[in-house]
């Protein structure tokens, strides 16, 4: 069977789900952020794959590049926040950081 669009999309889907799984189960903020990165990567695979198979131009690739850039920005901010949290709470377990409540 030739490697086609579906293969890439399935890889993307699996990455997406794994990312979601991390986000759902992890208590560690950094781990959750890693899950988010997985999600972003999964959609990037989609974009590049579609760019290749569907649109026939590089628009999808451009999109992927922007996603990567923004992922970097988000990671920077995210990790800054995580560090701030760590300074205050001395842990980055999201369950512990729960001053906010009803």
């Amino acid at each position: 069977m030739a490697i086609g669009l579906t293969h890439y999309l399935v890889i993307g889907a699996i990455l997406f789900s794994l990312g979601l799984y991390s986000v759902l189960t992890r208590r560690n903020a950094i781990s959750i952020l890693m899950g988010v990165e997985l999600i972003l990567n999964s959609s990037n695979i989609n974009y590049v794959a579609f760019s290749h198979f569907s649109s026939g131009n590089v628009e999808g690739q451009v999109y992927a590049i922007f996603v990567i850039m923004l992922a970097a920005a988000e990671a920077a901010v995210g990790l800054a926040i995580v560090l701030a949290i760590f300074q205050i709470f001395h842990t980055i377990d999201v369950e512990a950081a729960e001053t906010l409540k009803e």
Partner: protein
Amino acid sequence: MDIATALFYLVAIITVGSAAVVAFSRNIIYSAFSLMGTFAGVAGIYVFLGADFVAAVQLLIYVGGILVLILFAVMLTHRITDVEITNRAAGRIPALLAIGIFIFLLVQTIRETSWAKAKEILYAPTTARIGDLFLENYLLPFELASLVLLAALIGAVVLSRKELRE
């Protein structure tokens, strides 16, 4: 199975496998390091898709930037030996269940959907075309992205600045 196909599956397995380690590992250091595998694998996939520039960017930014950041964060916030505490996970079984259904739905839909078909599939180098696009059609997003990065920069500085006033 030709080489290319075999290579593809190899890359795919690396990608998915290390992603699985990221998701399932009980040690955050393992997670963080396997993330590198994923990123690299994804870069490989980009190469398969003829997106050389994107692959390069992926390696540069993800592996060279983001991953390093993450590792720094991990180091800063954990004693490495502290395995159990650092990467607790909760609700695995329901999560697995939900994710299972979800993945099933996704894959089913992917298989049944008639995606758009490109007129021709190109395998030309893309760097130049992407560069053109950035300066022409995608100038505004490009500028905007720089703004995002600027804001993120400032934000990261502000947020992580140690300032104990209490």
